[in-house]
């Protein structure tokens, strides 16, 4: 999977045609073989753009930044990225007519060791769902797979699970990197920063981490697209995907196979309901 040349050509053409002001893609980080996001405004820099299986970040996150807001943006999105982009469109955060989207029929990205990452192995919708042009051969939708870690956790005992998660909450340093790196956390003022939310928590205790992470994951429930930007950003390397994947599993299984951002106009699972929703857990 190497679309570097195609993306460079498209970006160059977009700039010469005057269709975009900014292009958001990937470039090499300059000291090893990993990549970093590239926000390009100068057409001369187009040649630095790359796209390989090392292009791990979800670039739709950069649409909420000041340097792209209200500008015409060219953007590269993989399958999962395009779903979060779809949600941003649905939730009126970006305007479709200001975007030129290069969709990728993604084959999965790899980690530092060259291993295919877990979310790509379990990926259901590898192809971009919203795009102006698509690179690669679309592979179509796959069956839903319950996350392996969630399965393993479910088999563990209550005591073990509690211990495991208390450690996670203890290790959280409340840096908010997870929130900041999430493309769907665009709130002007995040609830976990607000006085009403933190006043009874202290600022850097495992209790406040419990509150913050739980609330955060519930705000992303039915919206999270499993891009794992949060996990990549976490300095404590916490397995944040566990929270999201658990919610995704419950929502997919119970609410008419709802998956976030697959169709434009489809809001998160909490903003609609069905009369057929499960009711047996309620007395």
């Amino acid at each position, binding site marked *: 999977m190497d679309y570097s040349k195609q993306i460079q050509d498209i970006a160059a053409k977009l700039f010469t045609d005057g269709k975009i002001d900014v292009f958001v893609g990937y470039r090499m980080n300059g000291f090893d073989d990993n990549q970093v996001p590239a926000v390009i405004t100068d057409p001369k820099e187009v040649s630095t753009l790359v796209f390989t299986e090392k292009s791990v970040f979800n670039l739709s996150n950069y649409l909420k930044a000041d340097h792209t807001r*209200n500008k015409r943006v060219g953007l590269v999105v993989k399958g999962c990225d395009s779903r979060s982009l779809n949600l941003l469109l649905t*939730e009126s*955060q970006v305007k479709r007519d200001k975007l030129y989207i290069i969709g990728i029929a993604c084959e999965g990205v790899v980690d530092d060791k060259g291993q295919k990452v877990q979310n790509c192995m379990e990926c259901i919708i590898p192809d971009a769902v919203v795009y102006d042009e698509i690179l690669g051969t679309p592979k179509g939708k796959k069956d839903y797979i319950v996350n392996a870690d969630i399965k393993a956790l479910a088999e563990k005992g209550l005591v073990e699970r509690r211990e495991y998660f208390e450690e996670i909450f203890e290790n959280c340093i409340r840096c908010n990197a997870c929130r900041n790196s999430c493309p769907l956390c665009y*709130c*002007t*003022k995040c609830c976990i920063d607000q006085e*009403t*939310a933190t006043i*009874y928590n202290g600022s850097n205790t495992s209790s406040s981490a419990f509150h913050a992470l739980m609330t955060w994951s519930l705000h992303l429930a039915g919206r999270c697209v499993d891009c794992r930007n949060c996990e990549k950003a976490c300095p404590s390397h916490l397995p944040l995907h566990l929270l999201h994947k658990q919610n995704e599993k419950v929502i997919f299984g119970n609410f008419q196979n709802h998956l976030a951002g697959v169709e434009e106009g489809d809001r998160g699972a909490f*903003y609609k309901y069905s009369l057929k929703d499960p009711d047996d857990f309620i007395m």
Partner: protein
Amino acid sequence: MARVGVFVCFCGANIADFVDVPTVVEEAKKIREVKFAIDYKYMCSDPGQQMIRDAIVQHRLTSIVVAACSPRMHEKTFRKALSDAGMNPYLLEVANIREHSSWVHQKDKKAATEKAGDLVRMAVAKSIANEQLHEISVPVTKRALVIGGGIAGIQAALDIADARIPVTLVERSPSIGGRMAQLDETFPTLDCSQCILTPKMVDVASHPYIELIPYSEVIELNGYVGNYKAKIRKKASYVNFKTCTGCGACWQKCPVKVPNEYNCGIDTRKAIYTPFPQAVPNKPVIDAEHCTMLLKGKCGICAKVCEKGSIDYKMVDEVIEREIGAVVVATGYDLWDATPYEEYGVGRYKDIINSLEFERMVSANGPTGGVPVRPSDGKVPKTVVFIKCVGSRDKAKGIEFCSKICCMYTAKHAILLHHKVHDSRAYIFYMDIRAAGKGYEEFVNRAQVETGAVYLRGRVSKIYQKGDKLMVRGEDGQLGQEVEVEADLVVLATAVIPYKENPALARLLGISYDKYGYLSEAHPKLRPVETAKAGIFLAGCTQAPKDIPDTVAQASACAAKVCGLFAGDTMKKDPMISTVNNEFCSGCQNCVQVCPYQAIVTEEIPLGHGAKEMRTVAKINEGVCQGCGSCVAICRSMAITLAGFTDPQIINEIVAI
């Protein structure tokens, strides 16, 4: 610093027997913010309220907690006491220590006292976060919009207008009158439908407080109770109503023949037509779908014969806007299409008709001059089979509900048939006879005795043709054997279904409808004429199948509701509604999706102070918001606050104990 006063009630022995009230007072005094705490035998009595009023002044209290019975009982009483003392009434909190403590823990006084102490602590904590709220008063536009000019709409419009409230009556067809105008005689008194309806129609047209807009449709409704804005599309009639005298020369000369809707398509009308002789307004309209002048630009006969020059082929649709305060929806019903009943040969045999077609035939002003005839050969039928519950009460093919009126009108049809064709005989297949109503059972008996109508309890399984007769095979459940009737004519009492465009209308109005398309009332028993949207009311068969007396009663009830709504110049509204903090709102508009009342709209505000670029934020219409808090809980950035139940208030309660 908050200064809270706590007032604990004995409620006679109701609380004091099972909760140690002085201990609760002592516990309350330990709370930092509580500056005054006292108990009394009956807090809701005058001296009790006086204690509250005095303490507010004396101790400069900033909020009040009354520990007594359920807030559903006396919250209003104590709020009034607060405002009498010059304090904002919404600074009150009630700790429910009777229903939630003393009455439910009668065996454990210690635990009940402890719990009462906790409930007081929670109420105190909440009251600290209470804010001053003010009743919202919403101005009212005193004009009602009635949608539908059938008997329901006519009655509602007349009753409202008689209270000197202006009414705009919108009717889709060229004349008001609706289904009732199509009926011959009405059960159970057999008085002539036209004779009782047409005077009312004339009243509508001549009433100084009624503005009749026929041949038009409501296309938009915005706003909220008391302050709606309606857009009404007046279809082009191609006839200038101001100059037209209704002489009828035009439609007599018009060469184009079109199936006549008023007579269920049994005969024809012209392309320029008045629906029926007694139409109100009695002015013709041109049917643009069939007029050759409008379609091909040739003909123009009506313009030539019109002495007044009232025909205007260039007329276009017009959109009228009205500001209104309340809406009465009275769109009426249609009959269900019985085609799914294949075994009856519906559509195959000409001599199977529905009951409205039969009604038109036996009408004195009907297409056959009041005598029923067979559509196939025009002969007068001698044996007529009526089949009830066609489509009704039939989950498999039709609709689950009972159409309510068929039992009665079928009995009426049997009597009318007997009147028109003396040597005829009616056979009626039925499931049950439902004749609950004043004089209804007697009427059915009359049909059976007077006309000799044969009531056969059972379903018809098959209808087939034999010669020029229709053989109706069914079951006589009472004899337990199969019967076969040789019929000249079969009349199906098909199910009553709502007006087909009800769902579209409901979406336009922002009200809900059920799976059949009937519009939903706010409460099936206690609020049968209101919808869930304030200021929109339902009359007649738009809500459920009804006969004329029920329809008229409901229409008058709507009128009473509208008059009640318009009694003052403004409406008072509970201040416990949501508001949006623009600073925090990220404009995702998920709240717009979740709001059950469409109370949330969006507005554009500058991106920053003095910025040119705009951003979208949610805006709550305080007239519409009912204060459920759905939007608050889903707002991720906590930009929405529900007055009276804010996050700080609830969190204070949670962490208080």
